[in-house]
């Protein structure tokens, strides 16, 4: 214990140092942890042990990169959006095209990794939660790819809102389980997936879709998404011969943003990192998803982080036009980066995101997801105030076809 405390202190004092990076015990400063029922502790420890073992395993790494290249379609391009840059006037804007991943979002990077791990661990069944359905679809695909049985928990409200994703999951052989407890949305889908996992810990693997939940999920999901940032760093050096001035990404649970930010943490003096949360209908309306900006510290879904809650610590429902940002919690590592001032967190309203959605579609012929439209909307505010020698990279985390039905 003493040793851990020392380590923790050390990690706290030097965020950008190697201590922090190799610090795999599930705490980011005081954030993170495993606030779960006793019955899940052994399953999480088993997962932690296996994850750290396979992370270093040469064969596992080779297999993963094979599938990332040939199945997911990596590397994704880093695209200079010239027309958008000209229209906004100011900084040069690049888009990291995660929307070109198989199934149209970054989610597949994580699910291929986790389902491959599940297979190595000898698990027979895959479960997952989904809100908008993107993670559910990506899990269903990975389960089909590796021939595993898959159940996806989805709130009944979301099933109605995102019917095409339900059809996709079923096509790929997944069973969609309707969750009608609580608010009938993503947070309840996570609750129900965890409850199910408690009853089947021996043979079932839970594929969590973001950098949230108990350790080792925030660390593991981040590691599977870091490929976004690694590619970006190499690509911008090839194209521009230098690092960008800004990297902008949307934050729901926080996996696409941490994926692109992470390799730039050592450069955070010169590269400004901006996470954009859902401002919904405005902070005062209380209909938003800005957990980092306007939530409080607390324990939710197994981790200590920021969460939207009332005066007595009851979890409040989030709101956003974008289903992927409609979540009252946020990954614990983001909480830590906020506290340390490494990443700046802003918010964008529904209406601003919609405008950016239209702008990118008309300027570049790229229809962005509502989630990514938040990052684009913040870019539209920032770019005109910068000189043309400045470079902004936006993580275009997903494509917007899924959002057209709900427009």
């Amino acid at each position, binding site marked *: *214990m003493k040793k851990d405390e020392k380590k923790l202190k050390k990690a706290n004092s030097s965020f950008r140092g190697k201590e922090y990076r190799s610090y795999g015990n599930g705490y980011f400063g005081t954030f993170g942890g495993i606030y779960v*029922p006793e019955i899940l502790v052994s399953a999480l420890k088993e997962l932690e042990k296996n994850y750290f073992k396979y992370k270093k395993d040469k064969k596992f790494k080779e297999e993963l990169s094979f599938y990332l290249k040939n199945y997911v379609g990596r590397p994704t391009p880093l695209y200079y959006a010239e027309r958008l840059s000209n229209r906004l006037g100011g900084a040069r804007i690049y888009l990291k095209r995660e929307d070109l991943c198989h199934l149209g979002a970054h989610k597949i990077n994580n699910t291929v990794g986790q389902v491959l791990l599940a297979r190595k661990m000898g698990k027979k069944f895959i479960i997952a939660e989904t809100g908008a359905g993107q993670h559910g679809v990506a899990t269903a695909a990975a389960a089909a790819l590796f021939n595993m049985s898959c159940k996806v928990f989805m709130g009944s409200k979301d099933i109605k809102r995102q019917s095409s994703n339900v059809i996709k999951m079923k096509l790929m052989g997944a069973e969609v389980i309707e969750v009608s407890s609580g608010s009938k949305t993503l947070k309840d889908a996570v609750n129900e997936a965890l409850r199910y996992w408690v009853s089947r810990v021996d043979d079932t693997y839970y594929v969590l879709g973001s950098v949230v939940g108990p350790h080792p999920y925030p660390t593991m999901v981040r590691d599977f998404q870091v490929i976004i940032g690694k590619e970006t760093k190499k690509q911008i050096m090839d194209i521009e011969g230098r690092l960008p001035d800004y990297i902008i990404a949307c934050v729901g649970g926080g996996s696409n943003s941490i994926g692109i930010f992470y390799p730039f943490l050592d450069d955070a003096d010169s590269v400004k990192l901006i996470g954009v949360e859902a401002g919904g209908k405005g902070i005062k309306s209380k209909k938003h998803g800005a957990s980092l900006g306007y939530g409080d510290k607390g324990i939710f879904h197994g981790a200590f982080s920021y969460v939207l809650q009332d005066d007595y*610590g009851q979890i409040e429902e989030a709101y956003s036009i974008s289903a992927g940002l409609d979540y009252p919690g946020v990954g614990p590592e983001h909480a830590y980066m906020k506290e340390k001032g490494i990443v700046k967190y802003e918010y964008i309203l529904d209406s601003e995101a919609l405008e950016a959605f239209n702008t990118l579609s008309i300027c570049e012929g790229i229809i962005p997801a509502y989630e990514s439209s938040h990052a684009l909307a913040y870019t539209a505010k920032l770019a005109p105030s910068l000189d043309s020698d400045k470079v902004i990279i936006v993580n275009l985390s997903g494509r917007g076809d899924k959002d057209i039905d709900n427009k």
Partner: protein
Amino acid sequence: MYDGKDSPIERVFKKLRKNNQKAFIPFITCGFPSLDGFFSLFETLDKNGADIIEVGIPFSDPLADGPVIQTTSKIALENGINTDIVFNSIIKIRKSSDTPIAIMTYFNTIYHYGTGRFLKKAKEAGVNGLIIPDLPLEEFTSYRSYFNQVNIDNIMFASLTSSKERLSAIAGQCRGFIYCVSVKGVTGIRNSISPEVIDFLKNLKEITTLPLALGFGLSNREQINQIKGYCDGVIIGSKILSLLLEARSFNSGLKEVKNFALDINKVLKDRI
């Protein structure tokens, strides 16, 4: 401050052990079906055999609970129940009952209230123990000092999946009794007992002298007859709450709870 003496909860078990009897520990949600209904329910259980009563502070996202306690928590929250109302309710109960009370709630409720402040208020209200399903050993360690300061029993969980080393460590931190989870799953009614539960209890007995109370899934006297020889008490929540949820009227539900409590308690108090 922790004084090393037996706590009120530990005294209950000591007394029962002398007579080779077992504790009946019902669980109810504060504010369900209403605040007045909760008081009547508490009184009914208190007068009909309950040795310790577990009172739930409702939480919006009860991860370890099945449909029944999810429903009662939701109803209680809709009735406007909050942490302060629960403490005030216990103050009121303490005017007429000294039956030990353990509070069950999820850790965010406590953390948000302020862990130190929560424990102090709980102690002042007359709470004897705390049960926090999402605060395992790893996380409890950071908060242990708060418990010692106010001398409230920290009741921890042991599960079928906990390793032997882990169970010893849990027993080392736990006070009052060990909450032994009889299923791989969440709370809720089951009709049988898995044979591995008996081995689990036998193993625990070798590890610790703390009282063992078995909970999750218990609902009938057959189950209790099977396991009572291996533990010191049973916790029953979902079954009792479902009697009320399914009853035609509150009064008829209360009558059923009374009969159930008397029946179960008879099994627990009959010497083996």
